[in-house]
């Protein structure tokens, strides 16, 4: 049994002269949820399609469960669940017919899993695909990815189109798969979608790998802007010297600032001075890219006063 479930070594894909992804190198261990982040068009889908064998590799190497994907060995895909971005399904089938077709193609009986996952996601199996909303089609996609209890899950924007309640159930599915030792790669262009699920993330931009890091570290490196509302006017001076806090501006009883890393020191001080409410503005991925790519403050907390 190889140590890593998914392994990329310098994976590079060109479409003719156009770059898909360049030199991606990371490993995902069994039992790990790995977030794949980047703006639209960064190359996440390209990398995932290489892993499931839809695209050929230009150079470098990609392995799933120790099997080189360029060997086109279909056997390894028995243990892989793949959810394409905005999956396209056979419109003339019902959800049930579609899922049974896919499980027959896999040569296994997934009846029980299909029913149980569909029920959890509140998917009506009797309706035709062409009558389903995008969100419900996404659910069919989720069921087919999970139904055979794969050891590796490759999920391209899995929660897009799902309502918040279904997203929560999806998170439980991911947790369960993780608990039985599956390696899960899930992509998103929104950090908040993966930060609760993933242990580690890779961020790519314009086809190139920007960083691989644990979610907890990434959050420490993320600049967030915070609005604090106090019961009375406060003095700017009370915030000086708190680690990671910058750009403090006071407007009477309202204070705005940016914070990097842990917020507890800031909040403790604020509570002591009559904090009424807090508003946090998550920084977007673009902000993280910017702070990381520009090699600015976010990379090195020690430069922050």
């Amino acid at each position: 049994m190889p140590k890593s479930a998914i392994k990329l070594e310098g994976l590079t894909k060109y479409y003719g002269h156009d770059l898909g992804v360049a030199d991606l190198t990371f490993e995902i261990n069994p039992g790990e949820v790995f977030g794949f982040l980047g703006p639209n068009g960064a190359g996440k889908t390209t990398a995932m399609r290489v892993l499931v064998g839809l695209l050929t590799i230009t150079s470098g190497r990609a392995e799933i469960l120790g099997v080189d994907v360029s060997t086109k060995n279909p056997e390894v895909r028995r243990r892989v669940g793949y959810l394409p971005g905005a999956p396209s399904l056979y419109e003339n089938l019902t959800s049930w017919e579609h899922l049974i077709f896919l499980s027959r193609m896999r040569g296994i009986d997934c009846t029980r899993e299909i029913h149980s996952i569909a029920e959890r996601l509140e998917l009506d199996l009797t309706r035709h695909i062409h009558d389903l909303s995008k969100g419900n089609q996404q659910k069919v996609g989720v069921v087919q990815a999970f139904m055979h209890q794969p050891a590796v899950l490759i999920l391209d924007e899995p929660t897009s189109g799902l309502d918040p309640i279904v997203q929560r159930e999806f998170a439980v599915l991911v947790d369960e798969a993780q608990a039985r030792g599956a390696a899960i790669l899930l992509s998103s262009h929104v950090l908040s979608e993966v930060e609760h699920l993933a242990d580690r993330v890779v961020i790519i931009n314009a086809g190139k790998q920007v960083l691989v890091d644990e979610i907890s570290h990434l959050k420490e490196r993320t600049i967030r802007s915070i609005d604090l509302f106090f019961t009375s006017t406060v003095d700017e001076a009370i915030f000086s010297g708190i680690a990671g806090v910058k750009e403090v501006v006071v407007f009477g009883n309202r204070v705005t600032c940016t914070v990097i890393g842990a917020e507890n020191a800031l909040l403790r001080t604020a509570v002591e001075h009559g904090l009424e409410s807090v508003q946090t503005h998550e920084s977007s991925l673009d902000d993280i890219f910017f702070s990381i790519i520009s090699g600015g403050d976010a990379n090195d907390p020690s430069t922050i006063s």
Partner: protein
Amino acid sequence: MIPALFLKTLRDHWRGYLGWIIGLVAMVSILVSVYPTVRSSASAMSAFIANYPEALRQIFRINDYTSGAGYLSSELLSFMGPLIFIAIGVSWGASATAQEEENRTADLLLTLPISRSRILITKILAAILAQVVLALTLYLSLMVSVRFVDLSIGSSKIAAASLSCALLGIMYNAVATLLGAAWGKRSIALGGAIALAVAGFLFFSLAPLVSTFNRIKSVNPFQWTLGSEPITRGFNAGQTGITLLTGIVIFGASIFLFRRRDISA
């Protein structure tokens, strides 16, 4: 061969296919049932046809209406019959992989634990079965018809004619499959195969008139199948062999190319 995919491929096409089958049976019934009338006025008809321009008679293989074989050859087996076989062959070929790619259902189909070769072979076998069933339909409807109307054609010649139509359908199915497997575009598969079929038909029809076309007729699938005039001369093993062999080569090339294709989002 993957049974689930084989059955699904048949199911995806059955509506349109059934329409063609009914159309073919209707066409055969009507053509054969009016034959006694045609034959009784055959001499007048012959004079009439003799006034047709030579080119027109050649293109549509309009020949002797006084014999059953000549009549069927002109009215059914030179154009309308093969057209149905080719239409079905091309449409099944274009949907084999190109339609799956364009509809993006290929994303799920090709990431199953099944090689692309097996998937394409299954679709090819389904298309061949469609041609065989169509040929059987043509054969049986002709056999039933000749019980009521005497065409003076033996069953082996009817079988040979039906088979040659199926071979032609399989040839252009292979061409559409190849174009689809190479480019992943339904329009290219359909358009390319139809263009080649039209070119093949015109070259075949005009070969007696245009010496250039006559010289290259040995590479024309129409020549291999209809050219040996199976309804009058019966089964031609050599020509059938060439057609089958070429079909196998084109299907093989389709699989070869499809295995290497990038299936882009």
